[in-house]
């Protein structure tokens, strides 16, 4: 039987990680992630979790410790946020390019400056091209479930890539929700132990791990990496399906559609704002407006085909980013969606930025946004970026 508890996102992440039974954990505290580490340390101190935990002196070392363990064949876990992720970048890149599967939770936080500690997607989105898989989740249940699913995706022999499970700092990391904790035996059945064959760091089978590699061979490594990331799209869907069959919760895989089939207007969201946006869709549906929502779960690999299938033929689409894409004057997800829709010029595609540095994204923002989309199918008028301002107002920025 599942246990039902009211818990924060960070606790859900720690429980999810513990259920996956990592052999080695290393982490360094940072707001808003810290209680993930504290929870895991507590479980180990109480004998509830049999993992080696290394309380490192920096995030750079956190990723390095789990890298050493993973090269030697361990299942590993760590978690971080913002500046910690930035400090980790060097071994972070290497984790994926050495094809070492692991799960790292990111409690998303705005990047400094101005100095800030609150929620955003700017940290994780800024490292989207470092070869990891990146999944964004909406609520605390999804955090727990996706950490378990994450190992199954990452360790798949066709994938062998590390994965980030990303949830908005404070909005999820610190707020309590109802969460079902599956029993350990069922998780064990769903997620067998990890037994890597592609890398060894053991005297019984001597191997040089990562010798100096010429460009022609390096190109083959990169090509395989890209293929594996592409393959992960299928695996993410399959694992979602298997998980649903075992635990009764289906998330839709790489994307989740909400009332999209007959919709003229679609909000595209990522992360915790999705719940609010779904509520706005419900309100507008009651008013007879054909609104829908597309939640992007996989940012890497990007589900280009699915996004295309869902949005093709829609009149107006707003892509809402809790991050910015420097140099494009839009959010990053907008750029990705636009690239995926490169042959759909008839859609009025509107970039929206909101909720940076922990600013609220409210119901009024989304209802106003749907009103704006409904008023126009004039692409040219509304291609400028809309900013969600305080009090639910929309502000057009050229």
């Amino acid at each position, binding site marked *: 039987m599942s246990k039902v508890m009211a818990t924060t996102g960070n606790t859900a992440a720690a429980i999810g990680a513990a259920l996956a039974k990592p*052999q*080695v954990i*290393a982490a360094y505290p940072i707001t808003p992630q810290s209680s993930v580490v504290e929870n895991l340390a507590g479980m180990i101190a109480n004998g509830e979790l049999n*993992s*080696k935990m*290394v*309380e*490192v*002196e*920096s995030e*750079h*070392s956190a990723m*390095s*410790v*789990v*890298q*050493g*363990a*993973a*090269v*030697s*064949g*361990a299942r*590993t876990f760590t978690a971080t946020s913002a500046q910690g992720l930035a400090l980790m970048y*060097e*071994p972070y890149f*290497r984790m994926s390019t050495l094809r070492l599967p692991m799960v790292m939770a990111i409690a998303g936080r705005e990047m400094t400056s101005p100095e800030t500690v609150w929620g955003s997607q700017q940290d994780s989105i800024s490292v989207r091209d470092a070869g990891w898989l990146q999944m964004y989740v909406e609520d605390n249940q999804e955090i727990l479930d996706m950490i378990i699913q994450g190992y199954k995706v990452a360790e798949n022999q066709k994938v062998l890539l590390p994965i980030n499970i990303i949830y908005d700092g404070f909005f999820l990391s610190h707020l309590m929700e109802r969460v079902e904790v599956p029993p350990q035996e069922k998780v064990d059945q769903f997620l067998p132990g990890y037994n890597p064959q592609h890398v*060894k*760091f*053991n*005297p019984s*089978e*001597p*191997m*040089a*791990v*990562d*010798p*100096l590699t010429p460009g022609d*061979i390096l190109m083959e490594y990169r090509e395989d990496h890209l293929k594996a990331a592409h393959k992960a799209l299928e695996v993410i869907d399959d694992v979602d399906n298997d998980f649903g069959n075992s635990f009764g919760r289906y998330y839709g895989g790489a994307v989740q559609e909400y009332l999209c089939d007959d919709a003229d207007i679609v909000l595209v969201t990522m992360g915790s704002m999705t719940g609010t946006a779904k509520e706005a869709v419900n309100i507008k549906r009651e008013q007879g407006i054909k609104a829908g929502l597309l939640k992007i779960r996989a940012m890497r690999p990007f589900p280009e085909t699915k996004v295309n299938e869902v949005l093709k033929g829609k009149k107006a689409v707003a892509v809402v980013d809790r991050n910015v894409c420097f140099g494009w004057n839009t959010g990053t997800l907008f750029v990705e969606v636009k690239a995926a829709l490169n042959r759909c010029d008839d859609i009025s595609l509107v970039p929206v930025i909101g909720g940076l540095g922990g600013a609220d994204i409210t119901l009024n923002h989304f209802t106003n946004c749907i009103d704006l989309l409904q008023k126009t199918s004039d692409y040219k008028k509304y291609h400028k970026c809309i900013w969600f301002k305080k009090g639910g107002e929309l502000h057009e920025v050229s």
Partner: protein
Amino acid sequence: MKYRDILMEQEDLVSPGISACQGCGAELCLRTALRVLGKNTVVAIPPGCLAGAGVVGWNYDNGLKIPVHITLLDNTASFLAGVKELYDYLDEDVQVVAIAGDGATADCGFQSLSGAAERGHNIIYICYDNEGYMNTGFQRSGTTTKGSHTSTTPVGSLIKGKAQHKKDMPMIMAMHNAAYVATLNPAYMKDFVSKLKKAMSVKEGLSYLHVCSPCPTGWRFNSDLSIEVARKAVKTNFFPLYEYENNSFKLKKVANPEPVSNFLKLSKKFKHLDEKDIEEIQAHVDEKYNNLVNLAGENIN
């Protein structure tokens, strides 16, 4: 097994064809260390001279006959901490060893090493100190000694070589209360082997071995003089041989130490030094050595 027998009979674990510069102190240190450490060992080598010489592997071949990984320049100790944690979890006894240059140890790798020493992971960390970034063209590092002519501390009309004294890594590691700290020198192989064996016997905590590694190419002396340069470093107290364990120091005393100029004059990186410069270096050497004498107390032999 006597040290000579170890050096003569134990298998060389470096792959055939691997070679650093002629007379390289680091290569001698690597080959000797691996002969002593044996096959139940995994090795991490960060970027530096040994990695550059192909010791991790290149040209489609492995560089060692035992597992080896090129760590990042700044994460060798924390990477190996993770390796050791897994072997502890699995209850398998594997020697986990770093062979790193001074830049990867004293400069950008220092935080990771400091953390690993504080936490006491049971790894053997060997630093081959050739006093600079010799693999990338002889730039200065934190362990470059005062006055050294390097490509980033050139001898010009205003400034002549490095302005600062070197960072004292073995002493810093002793102050971390590492399980075992020692200085090693390739001109004193019996001592070298016995210190390595002592590090291998440590089953709790980190061992830090600091090796004097003369660099013919960077220090600019003839490659047949490497051992002579290394020996003079000891004979002049420029590189004292000592150990630290259980809160106490043990110092090997040099009978009738020679003036430091006998060491300095062998390398062209010091050739611009005038009498006053050499006096200052001598004073620094004497001060450091006297500190060691005080710390060692009765443990001087």
